[in-house]
């Protein structure tokens, strides 16, 4: 382990007063609490603190459709009734309400992740933290699951300017569908998500069989889990899969989404992880000494979110924090013990050993498909059209083609007939 990683930490106080609405589970005030707790423990002395720039619409449009970005900029609680069609089209209004300063909120959290990526790219730090980010459900053209702009995709796109391969790891209890979808076709980003799957749990994607398409086939990994997974099962699985992934994929940078709704007793979650179990993942990823971008994500029991991300900040700073929370403005939230520990949950662990084992086997087997290609081939793709990397016509039709090549075969535009059925079309 090298000596003392340099950490850049991003925070903008304006997130604290963002309010989704009464009884909405997403409460950005948890970021304020987290920040405050981190400062109360004095962790600011070991890292640089930055206020991120507010992401510009043009930056958001690096991923999102310009129409969608423009609409987010325009819409507000007063005028939303005038745009029912657009509201529906962009999936706004229910889980993703339109609230005051919505766009500014997006600018802040997206700006933080983009800035973090830039600092990493310029080697100004080894680890960059943006707890306000991690909103992994947002899609190219619509909002989803309390997420409006996908800061992770924007950050990864930024990292891709300087790194051939980026690894994305997601330990939120919900599937990281926005990020996976954005990079479903490419092998330049490997997405690995550990999440609850089944029982119609949001968002519904994330089966183990979702592995990517085209060049991205085998570059999406999904670890679907059932209710109640505990520290030991989760950590064992995490270590096994991630170590294999890093060994095979050799990413230039890692993005780690640390959604805290995978903690026990989360308002919307159903796992049974303790803070130590959750933080163990952060500890493990840090050990690889690869440039690391850490973000927040879900987490709907805000006191536990604050505790968790504070402990994880400490871990990234190689500082173990004592349990007794120091005096701070929000100490009242941490009753009754005012300590970092949270009680365990009592959900039954429905993940049997055999189930976990079968998931693991499937995943490791999928990984073998890229194992023999340690340096991932980068397709030289002219920007305007796609051509396969070999010419079908030149192939000997009698020769058996291996699976990987077959998968890459894309039917050309001028093929009139499917597959091998062409009869010399005129």
């Amino acid at each position, binding site marked *: 382990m090298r000596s003392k990683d340099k950490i850049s930490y991003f925070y903008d106080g304006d997130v604290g007063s963002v309010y989704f609405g009464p009884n909405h589970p997403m409460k950005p005030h948890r970021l304020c609490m987290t920040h405050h707790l981190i400062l109360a423990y004095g962790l600011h002395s070991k890292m640089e603190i930055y206020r991120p720039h507010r992401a510009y619409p043009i930056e958001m449009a690096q991923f999102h459709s310009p129409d969608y970005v423009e609409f987010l900029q325009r819409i507000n609680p007063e005028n939303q009734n005038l745009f029912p069609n657009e509201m529906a089209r962009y999936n706004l*209004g229910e889980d993703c309400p339109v609230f005051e300063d919505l766009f500014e909120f997006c600018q802040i959290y997206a700006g933080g992740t983009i800035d973090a990526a830039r600092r990493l*790219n310029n080697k100004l730090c080894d680890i960059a933290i943006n707890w306000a980010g991690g909103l992994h459900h947002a899609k190219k*053209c619509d909002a989803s699951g309390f997420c409006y702009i996908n800061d992770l995709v924007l950050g990864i796109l930024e990292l891709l300017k300087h790194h*051939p391969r980026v690894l994305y790891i997601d330990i939120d209890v919900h599937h990281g569908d926005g990020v996976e979808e954005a990079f479903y076709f490419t092998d330049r980003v490997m997405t690995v998500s550990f999440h609850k799957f089944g029982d119609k749990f*949001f968002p519904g994607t994330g089966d183990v069989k979702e592995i990517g398409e085209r060049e991205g086939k085998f570059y999406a990994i999904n670890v679907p889990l059932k209710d109640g997974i505990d520290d030991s099962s989760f950590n064992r699985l995490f270590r096994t899969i991630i170590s294999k992934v890093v060994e095979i994929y050799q990413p230039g940078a890692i993005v780690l989404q640390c959604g805290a709704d995978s903690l*026990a007793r989360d308002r919307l979650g159903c796992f049974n992880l303790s803070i130590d179990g959750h933080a163990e993942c952060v500890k493990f990823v840090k050990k690889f000494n690869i440039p690391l971008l850490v973000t927040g994500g879900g987490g709907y029991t805000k006191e536990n979110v604050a505790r968790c991300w504070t402990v994880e900040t400490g871990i990234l700073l190689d500082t173990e924090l004592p349990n007794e929370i120091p005096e701070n403005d929000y100490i009242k939230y941490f009753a009754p013990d005012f300590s970092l520990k949270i009680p365990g949950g009592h959900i039954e662990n429905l993940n049997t050993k055999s189930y976990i084992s079968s998931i693991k086997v499937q995943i490791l087997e999928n990984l073998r498909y890229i194992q023999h290609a340690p340096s991932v081939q980068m397709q030289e793709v002219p920007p305007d059209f796609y051509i396969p990397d070999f010419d079908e016509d030149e192939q000997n039709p009698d020769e058996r083609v291996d699976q990987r090549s077959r998968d890459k075969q894309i039917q050309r535009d001028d093929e009139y007939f499917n597959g091998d059925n062409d009869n010399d079309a005129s």
Partner: protein
Amino acid sequence: MGFKRPFEDEKFHELRLKYSRQLGYTDKSKQFDEVSPRDDVFQKPVATVNEGNLYKSQGGESSDGEMFDEESNFVYPGHDIDDTKGCGGRDATHSPHSVKYFELDIPPRVFAPVQTFYSFLLDQPARKQVPIGPGHQAEIPEWEGSQNGNLERSGMMVQNHVIECADSKKWSGTCVVPMLDLSTLADMDDIVGKGRNFCVCRDRGSIRCVQQHIKEARDEIVKMFGYETFKDLGFCDMGEEVERNWSDEDAQLFHEVVYSNSVTLGRNFWQHLAATFFSRTKQEIASYYFNVFVLRRRAIQNRTLMLDIDSDDDEWHGCYGGSSRPHYVEEDEEDSALESPIHQGTEKVYPLDHEEGGENASNSEDGDAFVDTREDGTGLCDKEQKMNSTVEYMGGSTGDRVNVENDLCMSFELAHDAVDCEKKDETGLGEQQKKLKKCNDPMANKVWDASRCQNVSRNGKDLQPTGSIMEEIFGYGSWGNK
């Protein structure tokens, strides 16, 4: 429309449902009633449309989102349906049925079941598709092997170039706290990450004591960083400092508006707050709400011995509506002493709860709030459900500790046994509590408390006086005999 909360049907979910963690299983068969049977998995256009409808209520694509790119003629190699490995087809054959299809290793649910080693994994509703098409995937910059990439290729890259060339400092954040000199880092480990020290105040744990130490901690930071950085770090917008911009009248008005416009009454206090304080920005109002209002409420809650408090429950405040019943109000005072039973961990002393000595009564600002919480109806009503499940364990058992398999009850680690009856008295609880003074046996208290749970859940609106409860439980005229 996608819901992060569990979805049962396509209807609009009311806000109240979002707390539900228990995910309702729908009949799998029912689920597929909504999809016309996929006669042929390859009939993608049809299946897709249906799937779009099915999943629209389940977080599917927006109406404009395309499941596949209609314009392109790309053919994605099919996978055998009965693919045994579950990871892609071995012998991908081009389907004779359709040009456009993707991701086909879904077993045809309605028809031939897939007999595979992993079939139990497949025992799920048909997988939601990952949407693909230009409206879904990101455009990946080309990797040229160098840092800046080829900048002339496309418009997108030109834009990137513009962004890159701009003042790099501006585009990667403004430094608020720079990194300290590395040589001092070695000493840092002693100072950084220190926990809370216990103070020597006579009224340790009181609201005054806590406020004093918070102020001291803030002053430390000002000393260390200077006031400018202190402001930059956001401290001026955190904590009860925020109330400096609010007059006493405004503060009082704030409380009244929130109390009288609860969501359960079909009102939105947020809108009323905005209307009442029209001269203030929403940010100021939200800031006051979280930094002063909720914090003060927490301060009260922390000292009422209720241990299953949910600080995110925007409903948890004072008297309003028809839920307050005279009976209930009185009983409430005992209920507040309720300790959700039985957490089998170490019993930790509740550190800050009982040093007040009438603190709350004397603190006029909190006084009203304090009174209000005593009369809370809704909060406890909600907790009835939780109590219910704990009841089964407690029925009949007098001394045994029971691990209660109900996590909903316990938001925080519980400290119950150590609660001293006398302290309860000091917190100004009702008559019935005073009677408890005589009960020094912690076990008896615990049992009694649990039985109070039972009573609350059973009777709901019609609670019996304590005496008869005790008799009921202990079965003899033992009330006060312990």
